[in-house]
């Protein structure tokens, strides 16, 4: 059981962390590819995967946003 305000705060916090952390870790992991010793072709493939993950990340953010909106509009106070 969780109160509406607390749930919204939790979603906000999750969105905030996701918004800031994904680009940060993406930056680090992309840079570490330099040390991977992989051929350029493979590096490019992995970079594309990262790109795909970044898109998934934005979709995830959208989902969180819509959940938040639904909860905000909803009448119930306890979930």
């Amino acid at each position, binding site marked *: 059981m969780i109160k509406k305000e607390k749930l919204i705060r939790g979603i906000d*916090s999750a969105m905030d*962390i996701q918004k*800031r*952390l994904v680009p*940060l*870790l993406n*930056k*680090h992991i992309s*840079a*570490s590819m*330099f*040390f*991977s*010793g992989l051929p350029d072709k493979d590096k490019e493939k992995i970079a594309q995967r990262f790109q795909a993950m970044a898109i998934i990340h934005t979709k995830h953010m959208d989902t969180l946003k819509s959940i938040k909106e639904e909860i905000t509009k909803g009448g119930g106070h306890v979930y």
Partner: protein
Amino acid sequence: MNKRLLINAFVLLALIAIIVYVVTRTVLLGYADYEGFDRVTAFFLLFGEFFVILHGIGYTLNIFRAYRYQKTQNALQNLAHVDIENEPDVAILVAARHEPKQILEETFISLKNIKYKNKEIFFLDDSSDDKYLREAEEISKELGIRLFRREIRHGAKAGIVNDCLKTLKHKYIAIFDADQNSMPEFLNRIIPIMEHDERLSFVQTPQFYTNIEESRVAKAAAFQQAVFYEYICEGKSSQDAMFCCGTNIVFRRQALTEVGGLDESTVTEDFATSIKLHQRKWKSLYYNHVNAFGMAPQNLSSYFKQQYRWANGTISVLKKILWNFLIKPFSLKPRQWWEYFLSGSYYIVGLAFFILMMFPILYLLLNIPSFFARPEIYFLTFLPYIMLSVGVFYFVLKGRNYTVKELFLGQLLGSITFSIYLRAAFFSLVGQKTTFGITEKSKGAAIPYITMWPQLLLLFLNYVAIVWGVNRFIYEREPAIIINSFWAFYHCMVLSSVFYFNQGNSVSSSCKSLKKEVLFEYKIVKEPYALKGLSQQAWKTCLSVFLPEKLDSDIVIMCKLKGKGEEAIIFDANVMHVNDKTKNGYKTAIGVVTIALSDKDKLEKEFLI
């Protein structure tokens, strides 16, 4: 033949070649008919060579051990993936003093995102400046982390960690530097390893720099780190002599409190504390798995400061190691003494480099030392030694995806740091401690070449020696002249890399001179981007390109040069770009720098007339 066998054979051959060279070199010294100054210099040269050889042997032995240690690493890897039912509580400590807000936010967000549930994050804020105090409060409030401060400052980072430690009851203490971003699994990987062995005092993981594309210094520093965190750390761990590196580490609180917390008597508190732990028969472990990412110093200035601090602290601990060895020789195992001696003496490499770079000059210009081995003996002993030892170094690291070019870059940077190591060693030996300072995270400015006079002087002398050497060879036909000229040439190439590394972003190195030479008119504006005809986003992008750190103040001071000259915008009292000085003073000044409102008075007082 399998790869491991090949490497072992290669390493063994290198060791034999090293021993043959050492013996030949020593015997030749005995045969030489040296007198007076000649003898003294010959012994200095021998010291320089033997120091490098000693550390070469240490490195080669660590390669052997690291390969044997693979089984342990594999076992750790399995252990690291074990799920723990009742997670013991962990306190995560990040000590900071006057660190940029953006860097701290990134660190704390990454720590907050660690999957491990039973954790508590502490921000140990040691700032004294109002701006940083305020920012620390904002960060801790925004991210819901605990802010720890103290009344009386002592012992820098070690001091504040110890003060906080007294208030903690957690089983484990994880320590991160303010610029280290953890991966989500960090504690989930390390805690099972700690839980497996009750006598394990700490587990150290690598530091991994990812800002390698931002500057040449950062890239080279990253490869220097890589060399240390591969075979060297694995080898030390196999001998139960892995020492704490200050960040990306988990301590057992019981062990840390038993030795009285981190050692506050030195700036390399991590290294000094490790010895105390080992002397109390606690064990340590290195887990070679990157679990956190950080930032390398981006310019020579911050790199030199970092290296000075490390060298000064480490050599001060070396004195303790030697003293402890004399009074408590059985407090550590011989293999641990050996590893600590190697680690503690590493930064004397500055003296060894200096000697080795001076000797071709002395020989070519002054014929000192006068005796030189017969060329055939030199080539038969020196060439196998140098080729095999260098070959082993590059070959084994290539096996871990490092290229010769990148590793050489790291070695070049280390070589031109010789004067910093020398200074640090001298001040450490005379007992002068350095203050604990943070490594700047911005690219910043190139350093004035005058501050690198030792490198440039040596470069000039090597050049003169080559010219004189060619002249001598024409008349004397002595092979030793060619060999020494080759080394002088090589040293010229190495020392020339100061020009390659000393990059900056055109920041004026002297704002104060502006005060003397330039009169400003200024006004406070709230929307500088509008004045420049830019959108807010474009303005921010512009600032993120030019500024060393994130800009978050919305109040800026708009400055204008009085009289002729273009418009200048100045924030935070740093002029980002000042055009060349002309006969009439500064021609123009165009700057983009930040200022918080609280800094306005300081700016007016210090920089504006």
